[in-house]
């Protein structure tokens, strides 16, 4: 039995510490997904914590028939869909570019960003990607995130979201077209990050 399975069993019996250790292993992935989906840091924090609370409540029903992360991702997607429904009833989905930039700046102010986003040009690329994703519908954004952040296949996405394979294909194509328009990526693939940023800075 792996240590993860052991933690799951302990958490199933009501051990909060074991569950918190499980959460630590996947918190970054879930938070990142939530942040790119709802585009606001506070919302992302609330949404990701909601995912963990639901997972904790549903954990006694976990039967080890899939990996823990696959099970957790299902809960995450359901939470996102509920969040979208609640939000669409509250306000319009379209955000202004300034608002997106502001929300992203809020994320930056939370501390120094790591990895890819640490340089200015890459940061600009990330902001452009965020702006492009803000211009597509929540479902298209979620499909794109599941494909390119989670690495799910078209078939898996269509199954998880309950939509057709054609919808997934069309959705990805539209999002890529939108991103392409924003990023203006035309150079060689080896240099795309820098060149994309250069293109934006021009």
């Amino acid at each position, binding site marked *: 039995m792996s240590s993860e399975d052991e933690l799951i069993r302990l958490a199933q019996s009501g051990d*909060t510490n074991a569950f918190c250790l499980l959460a630590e292993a996947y918190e970054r992935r879930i938070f990142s997904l939530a942040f790119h989906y709802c585009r606001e840091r506070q919302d992302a924090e609330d949404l990701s914590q909601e995912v963990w609370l639901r997972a904790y409540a549903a954990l006694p029903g976990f039967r080890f028939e899939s990996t823990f992360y696959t099970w957790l991702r299902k809960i995450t997607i359901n939470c996102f869909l509920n969040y979208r429904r609640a939000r669409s009833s509250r306000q319009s989905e379209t955000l202004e570019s300034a608002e997106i930039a502001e929300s992203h700046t809020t994320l930056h102010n939370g501390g120094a960003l*790591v990895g890819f986003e640490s340089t200015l040009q890459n940061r600009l690329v990330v902001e452009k990607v965020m702006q492009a994703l803000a211009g597509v519908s929540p479902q298209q954004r979620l499909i794109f995130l599941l494909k390119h*952040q989670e690495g799910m296949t078209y078939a898996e996405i269509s199954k998880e979201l309950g939509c057709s394979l054609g919808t997934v294909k069309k959705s990805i194509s539209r999002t890529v077209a939108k991103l392409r328009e924003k*990023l203006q990526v*035309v150079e060689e693939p080896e240099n795309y990050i820098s060149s994309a940023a250069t293109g934006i800075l021009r």
Partner: protein
Amino acid sequence: MHNCKTSKSNFVELACNEIPPARSRQLLSELNDCVACREEYEAVRSTVHVSGQALRSGLPAETFWPTYRERLRYRLVSSQSQNTKNGADHSSAYSSPMPLSSRVWEPLRRMASSSVRVPVPAALVLILMLGAVFVVLHSRAQVNAAGSITPSVSVETRTVQVPVIQEKVITRVVYVDKSRRRGAAQPDRTAVSATANSVARAFPNTSQTPLSLIDFKPTDQVKLTVIKGNYKDEK
């Protein structure tokens, strides 16, 4: 045979590794012969790659996570204690007897304040059906009301005097004069004897002479006469 339009429609899927290997190899070999398609594909692939990297990079710094975990732990513990409290309330509700009024009132209150989730189409159908039933009942009531308008009935009581034929029973006591019976007065002997003969034939066992009411006239005024004495005195 290379077709630019067909190839371009597959570029996003090719960049996303969603095309079978054989078809993928075929498309890539076609790109070597078509510069426009190759540039187009490289642009799509770069976009997908950059976007993927950007998405995977957007994480807060390490200083963010301790606060995040503390908050999560606090929420987990509070939700757990809430559940435990609810469970305790639930069990105590069963262990200690509730007053009768609470036992009756509480389910009623819960029923009145509870809501049922119904799909919108089903709710619409239900509302339409109720509306149709209401309209039908209303129109039927109107028709009944119109049909029942009749002139008002007034009951008149009249006393009518009807002549009633009352039969008057007249009881007459007829007295036979002794002297006349013995033959003093014999106005019509033949008629009397004929009558007597017929009576004698009718009553053969009677030894005495039968009485006859011939020549007797009923009187309007009955005068009662008390005769004293009895049958023996008469003899």
